[in-house]
């Protein structure tokens, strides 16, 4: 569909930006091939190092701007984790912080023109979500044993309803990684694709101003979405972690 030339010379290729390409030519993509995924993930690492490591280099009591950004990020994730999981969840802070930093920096870098948005790929977000899902499930059984299954047995409901609720709870538990990953990838992909579609309209001089205005507005929305989706992903991770640590409702 994306490849069909529309009437009037308009060409929409909204999905081309998500293609994984080898960096140094060739068409084979082995698991070790350096691709644009490699490049943009590497840039993500560099950006994180720049803000969180180099930015906090001064260790100043009165922080510089970059150090303030690093401290705000740290403080936000730390407070989120502590509010939701309590003190005993703070052990997993580096992991949660890793997720948040990766997603937020990958989202923002993906918004640069001609960039490749790594978080728009299901493969990437699914790995992130499955890691959270497996980690949380294993942690729940290790910490609470069989008591963890109490998560599915809603003891506050009437007895007759409990088996039905248990089925629903189990289904919703296993849907978690799906919605967790698709939410992030879907939001990023949809935003980028919509911008690309508007950009395709800009080829017509008559509607180009409208199209450019629309791109600008969408871009602003996407900047917001990039941050909010990273926040939502992290906060849901915290919620799942809380379920594993304190399975009682």
């Amino acid at each position, binding site marked *: 569909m994306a490849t069909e030339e529309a009437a009037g010379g308009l060409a929409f290729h909204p999905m081309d930006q998500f293609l*994984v390409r080898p960096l140094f030519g060739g068409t084979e993509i082995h*698991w070790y091939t350096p691709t644009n995924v490699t490049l943009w993930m590497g840039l993500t690492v560099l950006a994180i190092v720049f803000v969180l490591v180099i930015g906090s280099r001064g260790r100043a009591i009165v922080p510089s701007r970059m150090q303030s950004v690093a401290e705000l990020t740290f403080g936000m994730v730390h407070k989120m984790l502590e509010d939701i999981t309590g003190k005993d969840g703070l052990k997993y802070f580096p992991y949660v912080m890793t997720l948040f930093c990766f997603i937020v920096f990958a989202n923002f870098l993906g918004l640069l023109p001609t960039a490749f948005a790594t978080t728009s790929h299901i*493969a990437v977000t699914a790995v992130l979500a499955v890691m959270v899902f497996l980690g949380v499930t294993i942690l729940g059984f290790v910490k609470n044993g069989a008591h963890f299954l109490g998560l599915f047995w809603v003891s506050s409901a009437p007895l007759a309803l409990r088996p039905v609720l248990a089925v629903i709870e189990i289904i919703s538990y296993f849907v978690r990684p799906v919605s967790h990953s698709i939410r992030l990838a879907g939001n990023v992909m949809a935003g980028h694709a919509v911008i690309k579609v508007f950009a395709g309209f800009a080829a017509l001089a008559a509607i180009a101003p409208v199209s450019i205005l629309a791109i600008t507005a969408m871009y602003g929305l996407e900047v917001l979405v990039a941050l909010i989706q990273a926040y939502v992903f992290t906060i849901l991770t915290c919620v799942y972690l809380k379920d594993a640590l304190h399975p009682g409702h």
Partner: protein
Amino acid sequence: MATTTQEAAGHAADAANAMLPGTDAHGSAVGMPQLVFETFPNQIFWLLVTLVVIYFVLSRIALPRIGGVLADRAGKISNDIATAEELKLKAKEAEASYLRALADAKAEAGRIIAAARAEIQADLDAATARADAEIAAKTAESEVRINEIRAGALEAVNVVARDTAAEIVAAFGARADAGAIEAAVAARVKG
């Protein structure tokens, strides 16, 4: 995974030109690039590498450092507040001790004034008493001398009167004996 790459290789071989997985002859995406499974091992591998690198950078360097800075700042702020509290207490203490010293000094001054007044009073009393005594002594002495003078004067009057009487009697040509004159004069002076 090996089978997927073989499949990809097969697709590539089938096409006239070597193509990227998931693209058509023009290099555009066919369907969703997100669902081209040949690229999954690659993406997952690089994602895991990235996550491990980020995890180690954060947990080894960035997080301890930022956490340390935040803890330092919180410690410094509470320290400063405690110091300020302490200084405030000290200032209050200093004010209280100043007020106490002031009150002490006032009391001391009052005591000194009272003592000085009492001393002066005592001196004054002593001086007054001495002066009184002196005056009394002088008065007594004067009294004595006045009495003496008075007695002397009386004596002198008697003598003068006797002598005068004797002279007068002699001038009249009469002789009078001294005893009679004296008795007469004495009677007259007394009378």
